[in-house]
């Protein structure tokens, strides 16, 4: 390869897309490092505090697409206090200053101000795609700026963000000349939108493939919009409530019949069982179905609907479908790859899901590789069966609603069950545990989970040994998050070098003390060790023997961050 001119190598590198492969290329030799960095267009940064934007821009001058993640994962569950960080503005500012030709920005768990959206919309003339997942602080004013100023906008995808609705009509800010939209998702917005404006926008967007509406878009508007966009591939229904005027409903069914391309369906933020029948024409072609927000649909209706979805690969549903319903899924959806079952609050005792539903799924859906399962109980026998039936799991997340519940049949902890999972699923990359668990499960994980990258532990284990098994055994571990476990200083400090091989470690309500964190911070200067002190006044130095309520540490080349709030101490 040394004798190839750079252009040839560049050309070859064009075919290498994935971040990991690209990272590997850059490590081969100096010239490959140089060529790779000059040609890389997409960069993924899993922790926005691991590097400074300036350094990023310096290394990758051709940067066009940036993905950033901010807050730690447990922020999703209200474990990270407000104001922790993850501000995107400094990044956008730096990219603008560095004259980066940014086209795409994807953010997760970051704080996005209207100011940053406004700057984004004006600083990058070629900007095409904005994806915000679980972000906060922006309002519809910021969206208005994006709509108004991004001439070539193709994608505006807002997923599960907390957005303040200011009465201004952000949708109207898309100019008449904007005809480039391919994907528009505003399902998480709470406010009203002007359906006439939306219809006109859809009408002038011939490339629109994905459209996800919010709750304010009623059935009749949905029908009119779909009539103008029969080419849609991905639809998010807003409100599907029985319209007293039967005619509109009939019209909708006719229109649905003409939507021959829809393969992904979601939304149903407000829906009545009767209106679900309007979806029947498109069910046979669906590969992805998300009914996890469809409140109040009885299990029987869900079952009736699922029977039509023979091509489903991804299903997100509520546990009101019940074990019986999961049996129907198992018999119908033979292509199923990803399943998420969310807890509904509002169910009779008999409608919840247990280990039986999961076993049924494992028997009927051999291609299953991703699972998120909230259930009332789980048994070792069931997990062992599931492990045998589905050896292909990549992501396995089990959340038993009573976090420390043992196997109800044997009253034993679930060590053996999860042990079977890690032993059988050699490709497992992500695992979340729950139920009563001793140190033994961690012994199994350390022994068998060779590809494990992310592990979430809650209310489990008996001693430091548990955590040590994991740190010693899982060579590919990148993210470890632990809450309410009896792991302490010995576990934390035995192998400090390990943390530089990982992205981050979260420990809350464990047995780790301030003193131990200080030792760790001193030994490892390239780690930021943050402890959160919500209860004490800011200038009160904690005692070394005091237990740490919350600790988050991560490797970084950026040094101590300057935007931490008062309650965060970086040691």
């Amino acid at each position, binding site marked *: 390869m040394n004798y190839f001119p750079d252009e040839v190598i560049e050309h070859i590198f064009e075919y290498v897309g994935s971040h990991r492969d690209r990272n590997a290329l850059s490590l081969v030799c100096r010239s490959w490092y140089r060529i790779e960095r000059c040609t890389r267009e997409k960069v993924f940064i899993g922790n926005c505090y691991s590097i400074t934007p300036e350094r990023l821009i310096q290394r990758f001058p051709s940067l066009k697409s940036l993905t950033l993640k901010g807050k730690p994962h*447990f922020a*999703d*569950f*209200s*474990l990270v206090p407000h104001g922790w960080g993850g501000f995107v503005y400094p990044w956008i500012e730096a990219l603008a200053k560095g004259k980066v030709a940014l086209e795409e920005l994807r953010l997760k768990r970051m704080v996005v101000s209207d100011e940053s959206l406004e700057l984004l919309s004006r600083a990058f003339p070629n900007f095409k795609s904005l994806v915000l997942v*679980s972000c906060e602080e922006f309002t519809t004013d910021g969206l208005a700026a994006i709509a108004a100023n991004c001439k070539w906008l193709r994608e505006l995808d807002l997923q*599960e*963000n*907390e957005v303040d609705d200011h009465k201004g009509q952000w949708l109207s800010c898309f100019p008449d000349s904007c005809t480039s939209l391919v994907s528009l998702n505003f399902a*998480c917005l*709470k406010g009203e939108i002007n359906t006439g404006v939306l219809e006109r926008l859809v009408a002038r967007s011939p490339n629109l493939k994905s459209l996800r509406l919010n709750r304010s878009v009623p059935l009749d508007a949905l029908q009119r919009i779909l009539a103008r966009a029969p080419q849609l591939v991905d639809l998010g229904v807003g409100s599907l*409530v*029985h319209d007293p005027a039967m005619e509109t409903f009939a019209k909708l069914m006719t229109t649905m019949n003409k939507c021959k391309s829809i393969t992904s369906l979601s939304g149903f933020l*407000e829906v*009545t069982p*009767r209106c679900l029948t309007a979806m029947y024409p498109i069910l046979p072609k669906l590969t992805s179905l998300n009914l*996890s*927000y469809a*409140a*109040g649909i*009885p299990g*029987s209706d869900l079952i009736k609907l699922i029977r039509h979805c023979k091509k489903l690969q991804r299903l997100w549903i*509520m*546990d009101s479908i019940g074990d019986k319903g999961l049996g129907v899924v198992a018999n119908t959806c033979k292509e199923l790859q990803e399943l998420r079952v*969310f*807890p*509904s*609050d*509002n*169910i*009779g*005792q008999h409608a*919840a899901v247990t280990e039986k539903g999961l076993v049924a799924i494992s028997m009927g859906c051999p291609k299953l590789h991703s699972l998120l399962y*909230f259930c*009332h109980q789980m048994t070792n026998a069931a997990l062992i069966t599931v492990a045998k039936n589905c050896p292909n799991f990549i992501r396995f997340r089990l*959340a038993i*609603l*009573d*976090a*420390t519940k043992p196997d109800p049949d044997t009253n034993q902890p679930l060590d053996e069950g999860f042990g079977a999972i890690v032993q059988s699923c050699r490709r497992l990359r992500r695992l*979340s545990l729950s139920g*009563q668990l001793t140190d033994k499960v961690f012994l199994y994980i350390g022994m068998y989970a060779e590809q494990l990258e992310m592990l*979430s532990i*809650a*209310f489990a284990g008996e001693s430091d040994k548990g955590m040590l098994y994991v740190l010693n055994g899982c060579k590919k571990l990148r993210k470890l998050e632990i*809450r*309410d*476990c*009896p792991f302490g200083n010995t576990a934390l400090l035995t192998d400090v070098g390990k943390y530089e091989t990982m992205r981050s470690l979260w420990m809350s*309500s464990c047995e780790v003390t301030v003193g131990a964190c200080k030792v760790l911070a001193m030994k490892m200067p390239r780690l930021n060790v943050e402890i959160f002190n919500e*209860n004490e006044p800011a200038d009160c130095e904690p005692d070394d023997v005091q237990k740490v*309520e919350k600790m988050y540490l991560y490797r970084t080349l950026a040094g101590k961050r300057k935007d931490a709030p008062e309650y965060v101490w970086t040691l």
Partner: protein
Amino acid sequence: MEKVGLNLEATELRLGLPGSADEHDEKLSSCSYSSSSSSSVVIRSNKRSSPEESIDDEEELKSNKRTMISHHNDDQDKNVPPSKAQVVVGWPPIRSYRKNNGVQQQQQEQKKKGEEVYVKVSMAGAPYLRKIDLNFYNTYQQLLLALENMFNCTFGEYSEREGYNGSEFAPTYEDKDGDWMLVGDVPWNMFISSCKRLRIVKESEAKGLGCL
């Protein structure tokens, strides 16, 4: 003199919340709002308690369901695993967006909006009427279960074409216009805002009621 066999309890006049006697609890438990799926179990009777207490219940509900503020920290041993009755921050691990905007929240908001809406419930052949609080329920499923228990009857499976087929009884209601309608045709919110009273009729009577 023994009082055995007189079953004085049944005729005893007592001050206390309805459903506080054991036998009542069994009947009511199936229509109680038990939420073992969230991290706390709240078993309630189908009646609101006195105004002061109901405020506390609301608060408890709020803190249980939405913010899930933990009582943890200094006093409690942190490594005591949560029993069903304790409230734990962040468990079950559901994204706060989903918690705030999903099923539970919608229903919380509905509940907050309405005060108690008591309506009379009559049944052909019963000696006296009953009253229930419509706002206590969130879906038809819950309401019908409660009615089935209260009157010891069963409704069949609801279908749009045939109403409650396959059973002796069907639930109907009188709406704002004074018409008698079959329960289940319209969205829940529309139903509770227009329902003036309920009546459980024999299936043969119900067949005549408008479905289309």
